């Protein structure tokens, strides 16, 4: 399984947006539903209460981690920091701290979040996904053939995988 970058909200300012703005857009019910999903899965739902960050710097840092063979620990550390620990992962100081936990020097993190090559990689990856029909995250492409959009229940993936086992001519009908 290969995780790829998708900048969901490139329009957010570098400082992020107030969380209340997101609640106004999607409604409180959406977040209550999300919280219940986390709880059912045994996960902690505790995103930052005040801000929804711009994630370009975090995604760029993850690309540096990919280059250094540290993608998985960096990716998972950022996920936990945002969703369970209410950390603002758009804040460079927070990224320096989290990167340090994974093994990066502070200078590496500072360079990564300003690195045009890494940010362009994030943007290109996002554009490529959009060209495949990806409009949100997570987005899964199974066996280069099936696109599953969103955090779907297990049964959807079961059905998708079952479809992949069918002959090619059956899939096109």
């Amino acid at each position, binding site marked *: *399984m*290969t995780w790829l970058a998708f900048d969901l909200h490139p329009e957010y300012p570098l400082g992020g947006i107030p969380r209340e703005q997101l609640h106004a857009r999607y409604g409180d019910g959406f977040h209550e539903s999300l919280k219940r999903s986390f709880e059912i899965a045994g996960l902690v739902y505790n995103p930052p209460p005040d801000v929804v*960050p711009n*994630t370009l710097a975090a995604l760029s840092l993850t690309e540096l981690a990919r280059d250094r063979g540290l993608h998985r620990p960096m990716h998972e550390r950022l996920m936990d920091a945002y969703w369970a620990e209410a950390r603002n992962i758009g804040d460079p100081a927070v990224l320096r701290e989290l990167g340090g936990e994974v093994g990066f020097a502070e200078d590496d993190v500072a360079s990564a979040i300003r690195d045009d090559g890494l940010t362009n990689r994030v943007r290109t990856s996002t554009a490529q996904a959009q060209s495949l029909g990806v409009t949100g995250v*997570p987005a*899964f*492409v*199974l066996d280069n053939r*099936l696109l599953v959009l969103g955090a779907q229940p297990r049964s959807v993936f079961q059905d998708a*995988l079952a479809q992949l086992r069918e002959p090619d001519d059956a899939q096109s009908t």
Partner: protein
Amino acid sequence: MVYPDDPRPRHPQAFKAPALEAGPLIGHRVLVDVLPVWVWSDYI
């Protein structure tokens, strides 16, 4: 190509979920381990 040597998917077919049916998927873990799976994600 974003990353060198990555055989990225080009034209996946959108999966349209049928009516959900409960039931075991025998060997799903093996399938996921064998099949290439690409996941685009953000942190928010």
